[in-house]
């Protein structure tokens, strides 16, 4: 790649930030697209012993540079895997507690980290019928903790999602646990503007800013009032190692082009 590592796209920035959250030696259940690219790049940089798991029943794939999977089940996705099992089985591993991280995108996310990928508008008569949960609900319900990566737009960061496809902290204050869910739920949201976490009540909170972004910028692009962590800080720009890893995996910018 000829682009210098001092320049990067919004998507590269998000992927790099997300990648930095992944500790080595963990098992991550990644959705296709940016979550998978960020995970695969982490494995090629600071987390060589990270194990990626895909919903097609694929454990430990080695993503071929330039041949990013288009679905979590396709021929590309199973390349180099240590184990191939069934879809149902992979979610049963999640239910048993084997997966440290679940890693999701979001069409709509609300103040409690609930995600909607089902319908805009009314369920029975939607304005927009989205593709649906796939395994996202199960990842949000069952992985030990959930990371979310999405663009920071007011239409995405809404007061209340039209439909809870993937449960976050529901209505906060322990409602997630009271509903019977057995795992922690979302802990971090990565966007092109910020890194967000959740306070003790399960409410989303501004934790850190992407380089050059202000608290006011974030507030302007968030559709609900967003508390700010008392020690909010600025994230470093993406490092050279992670950017090179991302660009090696996605040389044509199919996933990280914008």
């Amino acid at each position, binding site marked *: 790649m000829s682009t210098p590592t001092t320049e990067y796209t919004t998507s590269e920035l998000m992927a790099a930030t997300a990648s930095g959250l992944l500790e080595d030696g963990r098992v991550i259940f990644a959705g296709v697209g940016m979550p998978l690219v960020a995970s695969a790049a982490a494995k090629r940089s600071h987390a060589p012993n990270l194990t990626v798991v895909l919903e097609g029943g694929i454990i430990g794939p*080695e993503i071929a540079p330039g041949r990013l999977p*288009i679905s979590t*089940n396709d*021929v590309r996705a199973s390349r180099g895997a240590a184990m191939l099992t069934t879809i149902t089985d992979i*979610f049963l591993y999640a239910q048993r507690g084997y997966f440290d991280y679940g890693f999701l995108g979001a069409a709509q996310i609300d103040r409690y980290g609930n995600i909607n990928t089902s319908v805009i508008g009314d369920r029975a008569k939607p304005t*927009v019928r989205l593709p*649906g949960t796939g395994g996202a609900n199960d990842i949000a319900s*069952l992985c030990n903790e959930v990371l979310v990566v999405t663009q920071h737009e007011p239409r995405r960061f809404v007061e209340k999602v039209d439909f*809870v*496809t993937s449960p976050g902290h529901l209505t906060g204050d322990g409602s997630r646990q009271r509903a019977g869910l057995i795992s922690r739920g979302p802990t971090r949201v990565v966007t092109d503007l910020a890194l967000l976490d959740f306070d003790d009540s399960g409410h989303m909170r501004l934790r850190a800013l992407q380089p050059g972004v202000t608290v006011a910028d974030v507030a302007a692009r968030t559709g609900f009032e967003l508390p700010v962590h008392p020690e909010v800080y600025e994230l470093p720009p993406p490092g050279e190692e992670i950017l090179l890893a991302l660009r090696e995996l996605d040389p044509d910018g199919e996933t990280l082009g914008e």
Partner: protein
Amino acid sequence: MPETVREARRLREERVTPETSKIMSAAEAMALVRDGDHVALGGTCFSRTPMALVFELIRQRRTGLTVSRPLASQECELLMVAGAADRVITSWLAIGLRWGLSRVLREYVEGGHIEYEELSHLSLGMRYKAGAMGVPYLPTYTMLGSDLPAGTAAREAECPFTGDTLLLLPAINPDVALIHAHSVDRYGNARIDGSTHMDVDMARAASTVIVSAERIAEPEEIVAGAASTALPHFVVDAVVEAPYGSYPHDCHDRYEADYDHFTSYVDAIKAGGTAAVRDYLDRHVHSQRDFAGFLGLVGAERLAEREASARELSTR
């Protein structure tokens, strides 16, 4: 569809599926499907879809079907627009992430033209698995607290051992399962390479099971890899030889999906709406005598190129 797993069991008890040759044509096999049946489709998204069988089902103009599948893709759009399916049970529907929202799904659901039941991936998997295990339901911790269960047959219950809140998923016992395998012997012993997705559970849950395969294997070959047999002969009612039987979808380690084909298909819909899907069906299904006719349109060169592409990815 049988109302209960006991009724499904009774149907299975009555049936004798001896170890004799079950080889037939796709047309003969699809004649086993009746209007109004619940048909479960193997594979997921654009992977190992039983496309040769789906095309034949559409060619035979079956109607009133309920179609279920883990991730639904182009095949479900075709079944909806062809008027074959009027109910879909799945966790997701689009061609694939790269091609955006499904315009067909939007039109059919937003317009109220289809009954659409959305379940999480694991929840659908549990429903097939309950059907395969011969139990009326299976318990899980998934989907709790979300808005998904309300539209489904799932119900919450307290665990009698622990007091936990559980979601109970009732068995699905499809009338028919359509499965595309890598190889199958004449008796129906079937081998699937790579992930078997939800195929094994959906087949064992079903009352009638039709297996197409890239090739017919000798029984000795199945025996030599007995630990890799996915379905035993007594589960299978019909065996169909169908090379490239998932095309334009993929088949693990054999051929990659035809992404350009998807792009043309989606571009046509963007330009012409669901009428473009009808054109697609006329050209690829109804104008052809069989699946080989469709493959002829694709051309041997393109098929070879997709095979080469899968080989490049292989680490085996």
